[in-house]
């Protein structure tokens, strides 16, 4: 097994605040890797570094053998990395279906004129995209919401649509930012099921930032604990839960 993604000595600060300090970790191909930590520990900052929303002060990120530290944010999807957001970032005025179809944007290879004329090749491509989207709809049980506009959907469904859009990119690496935040206990339980499905059916490697320790222990292969932007511990969920440094980070001395 080789590492799909390696973070090497990442550091990031905003003015005097050190959001991420010298963090390194490897994520193996096919695993579910969780990042935990108290509020403000720098979990989402690490995500934003990987997805190139923030520029690291120092360090490197290597994805599939290639450094991505200076790639622009819009190149991330075509490299095979998809992400979701803590508070969902969707196209509010569009339907679930359109939100998912645009996930295929980077895979679309047709030019302006063939699109305007709706040539055979464009039609074939559309049909293929639609099939991929329908598979994702089936996986995540979104059938009944297919033609609804995002603005009219409850929060839990929106979070699912965001995951669905990310899957339509057919990513090698999926970044889930607090998939259970704002969900009720029942929905949170579902999260662990679809994470398993995604990992199995799509072969996607998953990195997840999560607060719910139940979900983390059930779904993750390995867990990275951080506090105040710095490394605390890395290991299996049970190792992390019983780690004295982790308990100190959450509860104090």
């Amino acid at each position, binding site marked *: 097994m080789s590492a799909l993604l390696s973070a090497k000595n990442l550091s990031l600060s905003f003015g005097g605040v050190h959001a991420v300090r010298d963090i390194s970790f490897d994520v193996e191909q096919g695993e579910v890797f969780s990042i935990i930590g108290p509020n403000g520990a720098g979990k989402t900052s690490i995500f934003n570094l990987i*997805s190139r*929303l923030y520029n690291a002060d120092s360090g490197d990120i290597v994805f599939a053998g290639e450094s991505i530290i200076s790639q*622009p*944010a*819009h*190149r*991330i*999807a*075509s490299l095979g990395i*998809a*992400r979701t*957001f803590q508070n969902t*970032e*969707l*196209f*509010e*005025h*569009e339907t679930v279906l359109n939100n998912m179809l*645009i*996930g295929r*944007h*980077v895979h*679309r290879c*047709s030019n*302006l004129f063939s*699109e*305007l004329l*709706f040539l055979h090749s464009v039609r074939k491509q559309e049909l293929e995209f639609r099939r991929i989207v329908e598979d994702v709809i089936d996986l995540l049980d979104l059938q009944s919401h297919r033609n609804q506009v995002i603005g009219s959907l409850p929060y839990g469904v929106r979070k699912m649509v965001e995951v669905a*859009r*990310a899957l339509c*990119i057919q990513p090698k690496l999926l970044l889930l930012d607090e998939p259970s935040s704002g969900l009720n206990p029942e929905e949170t339980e579902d999260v662990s099921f679809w994470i398993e499905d995604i990992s199995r059916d799509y072969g996607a490697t998953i990195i997840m930032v999560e607060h719910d320790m139940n979900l983390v222990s059930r779904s993750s292969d390995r867990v990275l604990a951080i506090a105040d932007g710095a490394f605390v511990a890395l290991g299996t969920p049970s190792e992390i839960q019983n780690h004295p440094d982790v308990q100190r980070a959450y509860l104090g001395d």
Partner: protein
Amino acid sequence: MEVLQILISGVSQGCVYGLIAMGFVLIYKATEMVNFAQGELMMLGAYLAYTFINVLGMSYIPGFIATVISMAIIGVVIERGVLRPMIGEPPFAVLMITIGLGFILRAVAGAIWGTETKTLSNPFTGSVARISDLSVGYENLAIIVGTLTLCVTFYLFFRFTRLGIAMQAASQNQLAAYYVGIPVKRIYSLVWALSASLAAVAGVLVAPVSLLEPVMGFIGIKAFCAAIVGGFGSLPGAILGGLIVGVAEQFANLYLPPGIAATTAYVMLLVMLLVRPQGLFASIQQKKV
């Protein structure tokens, strides 16, 4: 018959407002800035056409195309050079920049082409199409046909093409657009290119019916009213708002005391803001609390 005649000239004037209003809306939707130099872009387009056709002696259609292409480039240059450095600044600062840009463009046009009025030579002047009793000047017909063609092209572009859809995506949610792989900044440049070339088309079409002068861009203020009447942020709304303002203005010209017609656009704006502030095609929703 007279009513119909006025209706047609109102529609052709309204199309010009609509084209400029579409430029406002395009930039606003994509970048959430209001470009108050939109009218000046139209003026610049008209002067460029004058340079290509009257000064350099190109014939009308190649001159037209050269104008549209040059304006697209100017649009990109303005976005890159003037507005991109303003990303993250307060909207008011950006607005002031575009107003300032309008002043600069007027001054530059005055310096290059002079302040006296000019006429763009065109293949329409003097020819009139007669449909039974109606007579429609070819220049007005060209405006109407040109606007219609552009509307259809825009509809197809935004509905079916990868680029058009990417533009809509970038205007709805930048972050989400980035992470489905859309280069949002490049899209902004393209939106400015599109908007400036739209202004160029408006400028070339309007030149035969109005005279070229550096202050002709003030028509942009009326077009701005039209965009609000139509519902700021909606492309069909921009055209419809333009048509309504244009037609109302022509009728006011005929039936109301002289001078009143000039205020039509603003009166309609005030009425619309009182009665239906979101405009005809509401694309901006009131925040629910």
